């Protein structure tokens, strides 16, 4: 469907104009030359309709559409399967570089890439990130465990805690690894259909520890905290510019993971396991969702998209509703997004080896 020549010729004209006008031309002026009028942009979404990532994409689509030159319609095309590897593979294989096909990813797309899943045929480093949406998470325990805060975590040593999980290689890798690093004795029960199902198991008393991402925590767990049924222990934190863990501004009163570890064990977390945890935390939370253009997309097109996303994020309609849909985390656009993903997707061979071994030993994952 993308074989019409108009965008190419427009691009060509834009490029030619750029050359003709010489060096003094600013980036934004070049972006002006890109025009998507009358086109239709396909926003590939490798997840099912109705889930968190789909909602994220459908929230952004009309906002960005308004800001792109020529206001093209942006339609979300869901291609779920293979834990989101399928849609990403199709994007890698088929997307043209005219800016009319973009991809939205999530932690579930980043993790298989980092773990070297055989189903992954895509290369993040080829793509141009224009937006990274971070989120956070809060770890909480049942009041029945008898602890009041992270300072009491030491009391849980030797006690078996139960955690309801979607799978060891899903985003649940973060809590599972965190609990392991802290030295908790975790019995993970798999086969949950989502974090919501895990929370339900917690509410039923079937498990006694759980975590939720920030927005779900605020709307669905906070009432349980107020009733005295759930005790918040820590947030995962956020990464600062130097890659250090800081308190999550949404939960300033909760210690972050490294602090909680220190409260429990009297020293800061170190070693390869903590380094690996931070890598996956970056890919699963700090840059959880990303909007990408395919490889070899001309700079003018990338700039046009970046500008549009920047304006969309600054718009009134974004501000009015983003807190409900995305939580109150700053969106990273353009260079910042690229930087977030550069951090999130950088894993050394040694770390990869370590996490694969850990998964195989602990949870029998076969690679």
């Amino acid at each position, binding site marked *: *469907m993308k*074989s019409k020549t108009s965008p190419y010729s427009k691009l060509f004209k834009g490029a030619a104009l750029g050359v003709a006008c010489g060096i003094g031309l600013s980036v934004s002026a070049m972006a002006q030359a890109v025009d998507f009028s009358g086109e239709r942009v*396909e926003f590939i979404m490798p997840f*099912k*309709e*109705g*889930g968190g990532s*789909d*909602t994220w994409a*459908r*929230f952004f689509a*009309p906002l960005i559409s308004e800001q792109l030159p020529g206001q093209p*319609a942006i*339609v*979300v*095309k869901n*291609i*779920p*399967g*293979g834990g989101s590897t*399928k849609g990403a593979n199709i994007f890698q294989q088929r997307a043209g570089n005219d800016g009319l096909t973009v991809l939205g990813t999530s932690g579930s797309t980043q993790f298989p890439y980092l773990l070297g899943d055989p*189903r992954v045929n895509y290369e993040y480093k080829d793509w141009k990130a224009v937006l990274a949406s971070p989120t956070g998470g809060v770890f909480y325990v049942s009041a029945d465990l008898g602890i009041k805060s992270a300072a009491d975590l030491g009391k849980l040593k030797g006690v078996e805690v*139960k955690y*309801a999980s979607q*799978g*060891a*290689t899903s985003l649940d890798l973060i809590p599972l690894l965190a609990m392991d690093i802290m030295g908790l004795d975790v*019995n993970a*029960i*798999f*086969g949950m*259909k*989502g974090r*919501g*199902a895990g*929370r*339900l*198991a917690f*509410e*039923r008393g*079937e*498990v006694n520890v759980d975590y939720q991402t920030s*927005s*779900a925590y605020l*709307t*669905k767990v906070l*009432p349980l905290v107020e009733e005295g049924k759930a005790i918040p222990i820590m947030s995962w934190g956020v990464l600062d510019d130097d890659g250090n863990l800081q308190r999550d501004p949404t939960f300033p009163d909760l210690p972050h993971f490294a602090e909680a570890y220190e409260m429990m064990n009297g020293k800061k977390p170190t070693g390869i396991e903590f380094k690996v945890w931070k890598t996956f935390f970056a890919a699963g939370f700090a840059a959880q969702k990303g909007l990408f253009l395919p490889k070899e997309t001309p700079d003018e097109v990338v700039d046009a998209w970046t500008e549009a996303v920047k304006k969309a994020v600054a718009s009134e309609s974004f501000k009015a*509703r983003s807190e*409900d*849909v995305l939580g109150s985390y700053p969106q990273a656009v353009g260079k910042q997004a690229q930087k977030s993903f550069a951090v999130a997707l950088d894993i050394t061979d040694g770390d990869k080896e370590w996490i694969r071994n850990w998964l195989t030993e602990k*949870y*029998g*994952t*076969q690679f």
Partner: protein
Amino acid sequence: MIEAFLTALVTVFSGVHLLYLAGGVTLGLAIGIFPGLGGIAGLSLLLPFLYGMDPTSALAMLIGLVAVIPTSDTFTSVLMGIPGSSGSQATVLDGFPLAKKGEAARALGAAFAASLFGGLFGAAVLTAFVLIARPVILAFGSAELFMLTLLGLSMVGVLAGNSLVKGLSACGLGLLLGSVGGAPATGEFRMTFGNFYLMDGIPLVVVGLGIFALPEIIDLLRQNRAISEASELGSGWLDGVKDLVRHKWLAFRCAVIGCIVGALPGLGGSVVDWIAYGHAVQTSKDKENFGSGDIRGVLAPESSNNAKEGGGLIPTLLFGIPGSGSMAVFLGGMVLIGLEPGPSMVGNNLDITYTIVWSLALANVLGAGACLLLSKWVAKLTTIPYALMAPFMITVICFAAFQATRDLDDLISLVAIGVLGVLMKRFGWPRPAFLIGFVLASGMETYLYQALQFDGIGFLTKPGVLIIGVLIALSIFFAVRHIANSQQELGAKPEVDNTSVPQNRMPQILFAGAIWLAFAYGFYDAMQRTLLGGVFTAGVCGLMLVLTSVVIFKLVKGNINDTVNFDSEVAEGYAFDRSVASMLHYVYWLVGLVVACYLFGYVISTALFFMLFLLVKARTSIVKTGVLTASALVFMLALAHVMVLELPRGLLQDAVNMPWPLG
């Protein structure tokens, strides 16, 4: 609370709200009538309109859309034997035979009246139940859900047809096929042969279409007639409404079942219609017409599957956990509108909850009413010669199957399961039993494993588990009595008509042998897994190897009049009738279409298939062929474009950059 009640009432009956609701209903009906699309595709269409709308109007449209999808999908289930969505698979069992008898209008009338009743009942129950639902839902843990899957499985007893061993083996085959893919406990991939498609499991839509729709199409093509045997469409839709009144208690009970199962997060909407259908068979005295056009077989699933939507709202609104695909869409829509589900929906936002519940009721009235009025005309489709209908239906089925995961492998599985369906139909292996096994497989394994992890073996003593245990015992009791009765009847028959009993049992033995091998492979595969990853399939296969061995033994050594011995080629007289095309003939046509899709993509192959089929089989003129082909293609392409759906691409499209629409 009274205040919330009144606020909601005023909102629901305000002019603007009604208008948007009607808009959503219209859209939902138009989409729902097309198999495989359902509410999910509806969202893509609706969403652009939701922006800038005030939340209540947007909500009205969303509810209108979600509420009527299980209503309008009945059209294809009854008229063409194509299950429109997973919620209406059981409707096919008796609805389609009724259409074949020329009673399509009556079946549709009954179905829509039952839908209407179920929808209203669901909303009424919801009004009171939503206030106390939280503790009730929390009482249903993994242990109780596991017991409910067992209850579902016990329905196999009455759906097993004439031979119980065959019924159980068919159910086992469903369980085996349903456990293809990642193991719930360990994530290990079972029986996938390294194939990425199989790793996600075979989609229910594809299985439903393959096992029910394709065998019917092939059967009708072989007989070369219109769907309806009668040229007069007989009694109209009013009779269907009267049927509902006559069987009001059945509809009532099934609506209760729909509400309860729908409200439990985790079981999913695809089980509801089967449990209701099984219940109808169990509690009826005269069962012999079930499966060949008993109106109760239409009333039961239809009254339950609309009540289910009301029930399904409870976990969606209260916990943010959607019970079905359409509820997931509804949830996504709610978040976009700015409504966050959670405990506040029965607190501060109670008026919104009531607005949703009553809008649902109203949408059901509008939707079912519109369908009732339409059914008289739509039923006429069944009088069109089948060779003209078939290419449309096959294209639609392929399109619907492809939407399951947008993968060419969907089409390959469709045809493979279609062939399985044809053979099961031919040799009298009950397909409903197979489908129940398939639908319940993953839930059963997951919940059993989870229940054991949560509570150990002690889960069996939980009060909820014991209560459901009693229900299972009752269900099995009914099943045993049913089997005893039917065998008495058979024994009472003085002489079995020898012409309807196959003498050559070789084809059946080969088929049963192939199924035995499938179980043997499943067992072998389970042995390669860890204990938790393989124990369920190993258990199922071990048991089934014994049962299929019994089937094979009976076929080889047994009495020729044993109920296990069945071959529709003989029973229907095809084997002796040279005018009937061989069974494989139309299978080749289907395989040809799928191979062409693989090579040239959907658009080119469908065009070729249409033209060839119409010219060769329907013997239409060249002009008529051209017009029919073109209109079908334009329709499909427009649909795919508007709804942002992918059409299958072939090797050609991967190799060469083709212009739209070929590419």
